[in-house]
């Protein structure tokens, strides 16, 4: 039975084809001597299917003044200096020396201008692309991308979320797409606890118990249409997939040099783990770091926090470049908003959606590039500001997804995959 939450788009139908099928098609095209246009279409499709995303989320809001958009000479600038980068004329905060050296790989958007000043609504709103209210729960970016790109046939969970704290299968991220598009969360970067099958359970016993589980699920779902059964099965399938890839979580295999380059702090460990998973082929990885909401003691905190992302972020960019993966992997580094120009009574900065920065790199993204600018004192966007809708169009475009044409179909209702009143940020795209 076709589930109501499944996408009916032609785009998705195409992307669900297995890679082998596409390869066979390519061979057939060559043999039949069809037009080069067709070959290009197939090549573009193949390229799209290889696309991966790493989405780095600094929860709470990193200060743009202490990172990508320093204004040391303005009344709102903090005490830290700006330093030159590998792109002539571009300066960022002295708290990001590693990223400064790799600016030639990055696009920094300094003119984000969003609406929501609150975490409680802002995080979900941003990660869902701030969709217009159409009476449905839009999927988070990771679920959207895995849906729209189609699940690669590499036997790995398509959407993995590395986060502090506990893990599990976070089906809520899938929204109306249905629970099976949820995120497999690896708490503290660790695999699900049952990935190590006890030695006392033989292969035969394991196969038998899984068959029993499938039968029970099939019976349970006979009269049901909810996606939770799918989610349950999906999470089991993911666990089984990961049981075959235990080496991905064997940190003893990681070179000591890499561990030192990324850092042994949580975000360093998690971004190195993410690199390993990207190399293995995981399609979308979200890495979250909490506690960036520096209302108090912003400058002492920024001095400790910003380097925690700078070092492993730069290591990741360098590694992706060294491995020729930057053409296929899209890197997004952002928060739900920036921080206020004004400095409060606790020498902190509050929430500031009016003008903030994020960084993009890799697949489909222009390199060595600054998009937009803020006013001389950094308080507001000077020129055109970009909302989350623009960002989602940009991300989809960078991944080869035509966000102006492709739609979700939710129970027969066509829904735009990104706000239809926004466009891609063309200056950010390659």
């Amino acid at each position, binding site marked *: 039975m076709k589930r109501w939450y499944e996408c009916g788009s032609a785009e998705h139908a195409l992307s669900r084809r297995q890679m082998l099928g596409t390869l066979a098609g390519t061979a057939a095209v060559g043999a039949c001597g069809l037009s080069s246009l067709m070959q290009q279409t197939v090549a573009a499709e193949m390229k799209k299917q290889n696309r991966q995303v790493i989405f780095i989320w600094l929860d*709470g809001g990193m200060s743009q003044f202490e990172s990508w958009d320093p204004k*040391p000479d303005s*009344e*709102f600038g*903090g*005490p*830290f*200096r700006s330093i030159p980068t590998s792109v002539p004329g571009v300066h960022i905060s002295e708290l990001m020396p590693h990223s400064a050296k790799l600016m030639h790989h990055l696009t920094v958007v300094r003119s984000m*201008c969003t*609406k929501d*000043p*609150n975490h409680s609504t802002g995080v979900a709103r941003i990660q869902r692309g701030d969709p217009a209210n159409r009476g449905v729960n839009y999927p988070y970016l990771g679920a959207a991308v895995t849906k729209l790109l189609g699940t690669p046939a590499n036997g790995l969970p398509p959407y993995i979320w590395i986060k*502090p*704290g506990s893990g599990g299968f976070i089906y809520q991220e899938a929204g109306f797409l249905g629970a099976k598009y949820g995120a497999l969360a690896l708490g503290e970067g660790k695999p699900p606890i049952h990935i190590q099958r006890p030695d006392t359970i033989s292969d035969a016993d394991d196969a038998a118990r899984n068959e029993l589980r499938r039968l029970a699920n099939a019976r349970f779902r006979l009269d049901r249409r909810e996606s939770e059964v799918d989610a349950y099965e999906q999470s089991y399938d993911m666990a089984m997939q990961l049981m075959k890839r235990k080496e991905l979580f064997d940190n003893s295999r990681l070179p000591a040099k890499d561990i030192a380059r990324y*850092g042994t*702090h*949580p*975000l360093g460990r998690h971004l190195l783990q993410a690199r390993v998973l990207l190399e293995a082929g995981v399609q979308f990885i979200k890495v979250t*770091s*909490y*506690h*960036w*909401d*520096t*209302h*108090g*003691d912003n*400058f*002492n*905190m920024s*001095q*400790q*926090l910003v*380097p*925690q992302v700078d070092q492993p972020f730069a290591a990741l960019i360098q590694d992706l470049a060294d491995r020729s993966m930057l053409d296929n992997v899209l890197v997004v580094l952002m928060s739900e*908003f920036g921080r*206020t*120009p*004004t*400095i*409060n*009574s*606790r*020498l*902190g900065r*509050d*929430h*500031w*959606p*009016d003008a903030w920065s994020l960084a993009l790199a890799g697949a489909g993204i222009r390199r060595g590039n600054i998009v937009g600018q803020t006013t001389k004192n950094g*308080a*507001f966007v000077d020129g055109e500001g970009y909302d989350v809708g623009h960002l989602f169009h940009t991300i989809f475009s960078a991944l080869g997804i035509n966000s102006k044409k492709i739609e979700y179909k939710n129970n027969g209702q066509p829904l735009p995959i990104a706000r239809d009143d926004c466009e891609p940020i063309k200056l950010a795209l390659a």
Partner: protein
Amino acid sequence: MPTLLAAAKDPTDVLDDLKPAGPKATVLDPAKAHLGKTIKNERQLIRARFSPDGLHLAAAGLDKIIHVWELETEKKHTLPGHVTWVSALVFNPKGKQLFTADFQGNIRAWDYVKPDSQPLFTITGADRQITRALAVSNDGALLLSGGDDGVVRAWSTKDGKPAKEFGTALTTPVWQRVFKAGEAGHCGGIYALAVHPDGKSFVSGDQFGVAKHWEIASGKLVRDLDARLLYTRKEDFIADVGGVRCFAFDAKGERLAAGGLSKAESNAFCPGTPAVLVFDWTTGKALTELKLTVKSDGPINGLRYLSDGTLAGFGEHQSAATVCAFWKPADKPEPFHTVSAQSATDLDLHPDGQRLVSPLFVANGSGGNGAREKFKDKYVQNASQIALINLFAKVDTKPAKPVKKA
């Protein structure tokens, strides 16, 4: 030009008291302490101190320049200051020198009585990263500086030449440091310095809540004092919170008070419990932990002992007023008196012992979370006011009621 007098609202807050020829204040009575004269500064100030002769007041902070008020003439002048925020400010107890430091580790010496004068000397990169604390030896010969690299450096006050170092400079970045007990030097950045009244030793306090007692002449570490209460790093934190933010010795040097923040609940808002630890200097043991009785979530940033043994402390609170508190540490941990005011980042006592001064936060209406696009034109920085806290009873200036004739 605004002057302290021009800002007067309360006729009892007569700054004339601070003039050499002015009327002398009444009897010290901290239980009657009250907010006195204030003067607004367009930008936030971090430090404010009286000169040792009591004739000048200097303040500095986010606007990078040094503000000096000549109390006798009520004139204000400025000194060019620094290229970034000023982090510390201290007068030389001997002579007419003022030292200031900044967030890039630079120290400057000034002849503060001369308006717009250039620095007497500059020590560039004195503390490699941020210089957070300054102190001067009681004989006026050595300037002590402490900052992010965890070493206390002594400089000649004559020419800024390096004289001595206490501890070894840390090379690991601030965010990667780990506390280890019993180390010969600080494990983290230095936030506070104070010279003992005997002039022979000083104490330095760091981000991990460790206070180290050093002998000036020999450069030797004498002992550690445990102020770890003022530091928090919970399991889910991604940064160290707190540290020893200020010190004060009592007049005889028998007690040392260390101020800061305890029990921080997160490394984001950094809310916690303002706290003061009072040590017996002879034994090095903490005698008591002083508290506030009003809601306040930030560190105590300034402490001063008054001549009657009262300890005054002042700190920060998020988005609301806090208090300048007055304790009798030997009696009870709660203050016997408080003066309500906005957040303070420093505290100093006038040489006459009758007034405290503090740079207070002033909200300019642009605070809190955005979005403020609609109010673009009205979006302005926050400010400060220099506030005097008078340590005596208000004088009743109302004319006496005429006595009715029978």
